[in-house]
């Protein structure tokens, strides 16, 4: 984890921490904060708490996104303060447009077509279109989004770096394939060949993975289907504490900057709390 970030994540890069609600690579986000990266462009369909924390820590100049809320709870207060205060630039899309941007990059195309959306976001962008050579249709297009590095958290990998996951995959595969460099953390690493029978759960072949880190609970407070459930309470706690910038900073100090690694972070939570999340996940 530490080495993956120090080797591959540089100041000024564009990053995509993948995962829609599920599999959010919080541990990568915290490591990037600890290593004091600056001037990053943070791309994610849903910035979620991970970017709220990274923005509060000052790593970002710019956010590319489509839904900057605390899902099911409310707004992202650090993000909101930074936008309202003019501290970060934003570049905003609908989900479909942002996914189209990833698809374009993942497919090596200079644009991605979708049927025209008529709203104030597309109006601001001038609604670029191309005309179909086959009929009268005009199709909206979005530009490729090719992050310098995509970071992914997943269930398992084998020692060859083949990565396996399941459940809600959201934007993960497209985000990974859109980038040349892909850093992956997983709950568990198994010997070469051990996962060969799980081919229907293969997320990324090893040759698409730049670096692999073993990082149990690497998605907390997000979740890993069947391993541990989403820490809904934390999403609500963050809603309260992040309303006050001082409290947000204090949280980052204690839970991110003052800890050496994920293990130390986890030690700050009651074991019962984590155990409940583990049990709630059942084997689904």
């Amino acid at each position: 984890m530490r080495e993956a970030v120090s080797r591959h994540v540089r100041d000024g890069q564009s990053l995509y921490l993948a995962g829609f609600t599920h599999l959010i690579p919080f541990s990568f986000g915290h490591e990037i904060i600890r290593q004091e990266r600056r001037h990053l462009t943070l791309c994610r369909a849903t910035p979620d708490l991970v970017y709220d924390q990274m923005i509060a820590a000052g790593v970002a100049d710019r956010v590319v996104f489509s839904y900057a809320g605390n899902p099911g709870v409310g707004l992202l207060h650090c993000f909101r303060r930074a936008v309202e205060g003019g501290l970060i630039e934003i570049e905003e899309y609908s989900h479909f447009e942002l996914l189209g941007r990833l698809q374009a990059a993942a497919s090596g195309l200079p644009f991605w077509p979708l049927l025209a959306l008529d709203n104030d976001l597309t109006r601001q962008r001038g609604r670029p279109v191309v005309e179909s050579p086959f009929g009268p249709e005009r199709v909206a297009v979005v530009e490729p989004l090719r992050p310098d590095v995509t970071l992914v958290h997943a269930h398992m990998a084998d020692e060859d770096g083949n990565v396996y996951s399941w459940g809600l995959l959201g934007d993960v595969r497209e985000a990974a394939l859109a980038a040349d460099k892909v850093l992956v953390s997983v709950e568990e690493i198994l010997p070469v060949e051990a996962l060969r029978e799980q081919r229907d759960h293969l997320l990324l072949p090893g040759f698409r993975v730049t670096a692999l880190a073993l990082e149990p609970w690497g998605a907390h407070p997000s979740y890993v289907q069947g391993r541990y459930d989403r820490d809904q309470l934390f999403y609500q706690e963050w809603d309260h504490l992040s309303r006050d910038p001082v409290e947000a900073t204090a949280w980052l100090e204690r839970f991110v900057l003052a800890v050496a690694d994920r293990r130390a972070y986890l030690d700050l939570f009651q074991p019962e709390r984590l155990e409940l999340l583990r049990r709630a996940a059942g084997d689904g």
Partner: protein
Amino acid sequence: MDESRRRDMAVVGARLLRDRERVLVGVGMPNLAANLAKRVHAPELVLIYESGVIDARPPRLPLSIGDPDLVRTSLCTLPMTDLFSQYLQTGWIDVGFLGGAQVDRRGNLNSTVIGSYRSPEVRLAGSGGAADIASFSKRTLIVMPHEPKRFPEQVDFVTSPGHRDGRVQGRGPSHVITDLGLLDFDERGEMRLVATHRGVTVDEVLERTGFSLQVSSEVGEIPAPTAEELAAYRELAGRPS
């Protein structure tokens, strides 16, 4: 808003969903209403979430649209890009069910910003899938607390298009559900009051609407929740996960 008004909104929202329809459900009240419909009169309603979850049957109200409970009870979960391309863009979604911060007389919906985009008073979460859902669903339901500033002459920002040129397909917003009543859109796409909740007057609705609202020639009273609706609501709302 007091709890009974919140409940009445959910009940009205649920009643507008028909069994076997495929409904793309936003977070919050749409989620509550759609889950209520499925428990009361529309057991084969297909709940679809923009996270990619198809046909979820959550045992309790999910907090977010990507909750593990949704995935565990789903028919399947699609990569988001497949859902948006192959199901939404192609017209296979019957109902888009959306909330937001503001709606205007044409049904344009704002969930992006209060004030100006470049120097916002309040920066909201933004579209997510809302712009896509409003553009591609066969019809849209909107749910919103009834306050003057939420019903302005023009929304500060059109996140999701209402009745105007440029929607791709579908008939656009069919109803707006509020804590005061139910509104639809006339043939010109203008919002119109069609019914009020018990004890709410037409004048009260007009007063709480920021633009001059049309009123249907026959404004009905929305029937009280049935015992079944009440029981299902209590079960759902009583214990968010």
